[in-house]
């Protein structure tokens, strides 16, 4: 195991306990509650308010990736005919279904229902259709049209209508009823947690930055899988307190912060420490990223379903390249970075397609250099150590010359 070269958080033990409890309770403590598998961009608040237990294959497969079990499970799926060009989260998940014995925690417990929202990608639809077939369980697809410009009224009412369908569908499938008061409470909790997550990220504007991107990648798990729960809220209060303390005492995530960088795309889970250590060697800290910012958007609380629809339909991956380059350039100036690194992620097409156009646009806007690294979030076979090292070295040398 490669050691991290950035400061460990005291709350990491609490995070580990929380995540263990989350996975164990979904398996053993359901006491009759139905289990849903969701995509990371699905409106979980509705299910939570209905007392449905939720699991996230994306979180589970990221965990498989971090344990370097991704490629082996991908190969299982490939042996069943799934292409190597398919997303490695999908392949790892399908592999864990085909061969539970081999999978960490013996795979996820069997779902009773599935909900896929295509605001993050189109792959989830086919992936969840495959899971629905394998387990013979019902699937609901929530369609959020891609936003070429602003979100329109017709788009919003289209999504709201589907949310209403979804509520009726879940009620029918699970026999449970949606209590609007409970939904309001869940949304309030989710928003409160989201605000904390946003504050934690914003504290990284400090010099030195109290966190490095890998800290964010690891600590984002509860904002995704436990969104709208008191446990998540409690955890982020503790994390915020620790990060605030670091800032007060001028404690940085890495020993000496010479360069500040922005990270774009999903983490390289299988080389989390080794990969980011290369940058630490040059005194470079990733003070901000686009990925974990995907969960820092609050839901308007007036008309509940409409607010939820608006928040989920406008996640950045569902928006134009123009929006994404503006967002990136904005973050770069807010966080005072010296350059940016884009992970051209073989798995994640919507995130990676257009990166060269975004890169050019952002370089023009900010005058700062950007590096593209080719790899994969979960399949370590797509990671070539030496070429990656060479690119990082060349990039850091050229930053040094500026």
């Amino acid at each position: 195991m490669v050691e991290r070269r950035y400061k460990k958080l005291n709350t990491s033990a609490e995070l580990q306990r929380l995540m263990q409890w989350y996975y164990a309770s979904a398996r053993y403590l359901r006491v009759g509650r139905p289990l849903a598998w969701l995509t990371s961009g699905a409106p979980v608040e509705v299910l939570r308010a209905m007392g449905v237990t939720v699991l996230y294959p994306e979180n589970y497969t990221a965990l498989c990736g971090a344990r370097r079990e991704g490629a082996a499970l991908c190969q299982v799926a490939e042996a069943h005919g799934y292409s190597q060009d398919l997303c490695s989260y999908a392949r790892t998940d399908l592999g864990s279904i085909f061969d539970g014995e081999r999978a960490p925690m013996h795979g996820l417990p069997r779902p009773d229902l599935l909900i896929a929202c295509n605001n993050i990608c189109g792959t989830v639809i086919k992936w969840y259709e495959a899971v629905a077939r394998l387990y013979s369980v019902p699937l609901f697809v929530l369609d959020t049209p891609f936003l070429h410009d602003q979100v329109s009224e017709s788009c919003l009412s289209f999504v709201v209508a589907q949310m209403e369908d979804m509520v009726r569908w879940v009620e029918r499938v699970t026999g449970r009823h949606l209590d609007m008061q409970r939904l309001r409470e869940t949304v309030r909790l989710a928003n409160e947690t989201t605000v904390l997550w946003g504050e934690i990220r914003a504290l990284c504007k400090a010099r030195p930055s109290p966190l490095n991107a890998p800290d964010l990648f690891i600590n984002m798990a509860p904002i995704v899988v436990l969104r709208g729960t008191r446990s998540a809220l409690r955890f982020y209060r503790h994390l915020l307190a620790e990060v605030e303390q670091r800032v007060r005492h001028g404690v940085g995530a890495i020993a000496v912060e010479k360069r500040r960088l922005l990270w774009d795309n999903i983490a390289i889970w299988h080389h989390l420490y080794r990969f980011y250590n290369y940058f630490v060697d040059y005194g470079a800290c990733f003070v901000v990223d686009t990925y974990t910012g995907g969960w820092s958007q609050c839901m308007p609380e007036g008309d509940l379903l409409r607010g939820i629809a608006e928040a989920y339909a406008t996640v950045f991956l569902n928006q134009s390249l123009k929006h994404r380059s503006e967002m990136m350039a904005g973050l770069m100036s807010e966080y005072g970075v010296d350059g940016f690194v884009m992970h051209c992620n073989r798995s994640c097409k919507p995130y990676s397609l257009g990166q060269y156009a975004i890169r050019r646009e952002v370089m023009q806007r900010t005058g700062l250099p950007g590096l593209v690294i080719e790899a994969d979030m979960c399949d370590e076979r797509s990671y070539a150590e030496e070429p990656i090292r060479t690119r990082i070295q060349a990039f850091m040398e050229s930053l040094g010359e500026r």
Partner: protein
Amino acid sequence: MRTASLSPGARFLGVDIGSLTVKVVLIGSDASILGRAVVPAGYGGQEAAARLVQQVLEGAPPGDRVAYTVVTGYGRVRYAAADEELSEISCHARGAYHLCPAARTVIDMGGQDSKVIRIDAAGRVHDFAMNDKCAAGTGRFLEVMAGALGVPVAELGDLALQSRGALSISSTCTVFAESEAISHMARGARREDVAAGLHQAIASRVLGLAARVGVEPAVMLTGGVALNAGLVAALEKLGACRLTVPLDPQVVGALGAALFARQKGRR
């Protein structure tokens, strides 16, 4: 701390341990080249590098000991005899700018990497792009194709220049391109037309890479592949640009490393 000024006899070494060849350049305090050499890398390149350094030092006019050594290339990490290791990007940019201060774009085509580097008016790296994890568009690709065509790699470019109609090679993958070439030959295609098709395929791939960072003249072509006249012609034709090829394109990275050694050794 090293002395602030250079003794007139001070010498600096640049070592470039690539995937196919090792290059060594020795320069003096005035940056003049005192010695240079290229040999096949063999296994890992470390031994070849040590022998080549010895050979270059022995062949050079007598002078002071080497004040500073910079190593670059794929074998750089394991080469212990250097004071510092730097990436090929920095070294190629520095070497190319030294040879041609008007150069704003450097296309380097080596054994397993091709890279396009944009440099600014001061010779600093402004931007760069490298080929992905794939041998297409590299020296290794040409070696494999020369093998398939049954000609020495050094003659491949001249063979391509004799073509009157290049055949299309659609694949950018070395393995698949080889089988495409073989099926062309099996259908009785002329060898020079297949060779010309292969050169066009490489040229278009490298130009695709160049488009990521943009091409600004003057454009210098470096690396062992620059010795191939057929490829230079294909690049100039497809890219509609004139290329500057230095006299000894293989040692540009090692020269850049030596120039960095001179700069660092001066501090």
